Each structure stands twice: as structure tokens, then as C-alpha cells.
């Protein structure tokens, strides 16, 4: 399974991502999920970014919250709505909104 997982919250109340082990995984950070890409607490980046996955963050949702490209961790790619459409149609076969 090739899974595109959307994370829309900063304090996740589910541990589903820890259980899934798809052949290919990306994590698309949207809404308050964008804080995983930008926030360091006491200097440490979000533990979510340590997973084996490709990471993306939606530019619209960064900028809505006063954040931008310069705030984003190195292993997260900043993308647009158009990129999300292409990712889910071309590179993944299933989606999960967590």
C-alpha cells in the first residue's frame, strides 16, 4: 500500500501512524498539523519528523498562521494545493486523514 497520510493537528490524539507500515508513506501536514514542520519545543523538532516517510507541508496553512518557508524543517517540502492533488493521484493509492 502507498499511503498519503494527512496530519491536521499538532497534539495528535491517535497513535495510528506508529502502527502503520505501508510500502510507501508520505505525511502531508495541513491545518494545525503545520506546527510539526515549524515548531521546536525546547530546541527539539516534532518527533513526528523522525518517522520514515516523505514530509510535505501546505504553504497556505503555514502562511495563515504567520509562518513561512524559512520556518520549515529541512526534511519537509513546502507544497501547494495543486501539489497535493498530484501527490494523491500520481504517487499514492490510498489516503488517511488522522
Amino acid at each position, binding site marked *: 500500500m502507498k499511503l498519503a497520510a494527512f496530519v491536521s493537528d499538532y497534539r495528535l490524539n*491517535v497513535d495510528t501512524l506508529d*502502527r502503520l507500515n505501508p510500502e510507501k508513506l508520505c505525511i502531508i501536514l495541513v491545518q494545525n498539523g503545520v506546527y510539526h514542520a515549524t515548531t521546536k519545543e525546547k530546541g527539539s523538532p516534532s518527533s513526528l519528523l523522525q518517522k520514515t516517510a516523505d514530509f510535505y507541508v501546505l504553504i497556505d496553512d503555514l502562511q495563515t498562521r504567520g509562518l513561512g518557508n524559512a520556518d520549515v524543517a529541512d526534511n519537509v517540502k513546502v507544497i501547494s494545493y495543486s501539489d497535493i492533488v498530484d501527490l494523491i493521484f500520481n504517487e499514492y493509492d*490510498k489516503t488517511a486523514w488522522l
Partner: protein
Amino acid sequence: MATTKLGFIVQRPGYKSENPKLAITHAIASQSVEVYLNEGDVVTADIAFIGDGVLNCKKDQKAMDLYKLTSTETHIKMSLLLDLNVLVCKEDLDRFGLTENDIVIDAEEFGAEVTVKVVPFTDITKMMEEVNHLLFF
């Protein structure tokens, strides 16, 4: 004649949001989907409770007595009555110290023939691999 398989994954406990119940009612709607499709085409819906979602399966829920609200337990029984495949993650039950005796297993009183299946997470992973689309609640 084709089949589209859906996997409904319930990850959260009930009563705090409508989502776990909506998962069940939407899955049940697979039974009446034919009106929109060509003859022979079907949509199937499997339901899996994982993580804190297994707390939805506790039996003896008194929501109707106390809040005049259909319990999630009753919704699960309805899905058994309609022959849906309902899976509950064994590892998560174990984590909470729950056994098959603590959860809804059958709906014999309504004449349901299928039962809830307590399965290891690997079986739920297999279901997730086999379906065409996943819906997380």
C-alpha cells in the same frame, strides 16, 4: 459486475464526537448502495476498531437510560445484524486489560448471524491492504 471495498477505521472513543457512530452508520449504508449502481456492482464496508477506538466496543452502555441516546453498542449490533465484517484489535484490548467478555461480541437477540472478530493488528493491516479506499474516523 465489480466490487469496491472500503475500510472504516475507528481510532477514537465514542461520545466525545459523532465520528465513531457516523463511521458505523456510513458503513451500514453499504447495504443500500445498489440503487445508485448498475446491477451486480457492489460496495463493501469492513469496520475496524483500533487504538482508543476499541473503547467503543464496551458492553452494557447505558446511553439510552441516562441521556436518551442510542448507544454506540447498539450501533455495533446493528452492523452485525446487517452482516458487516467488524474487527477489533486484540493488542489494544490487551493494552486496556479488556477481554472478549467485556465487549459486544454478538447481536443474537436481534437474530444476527455474524459476530465481532477480535483479531491481531496484522489482520487489520491485511484488511487495510486489501480494500480500495480507507476512511479514518
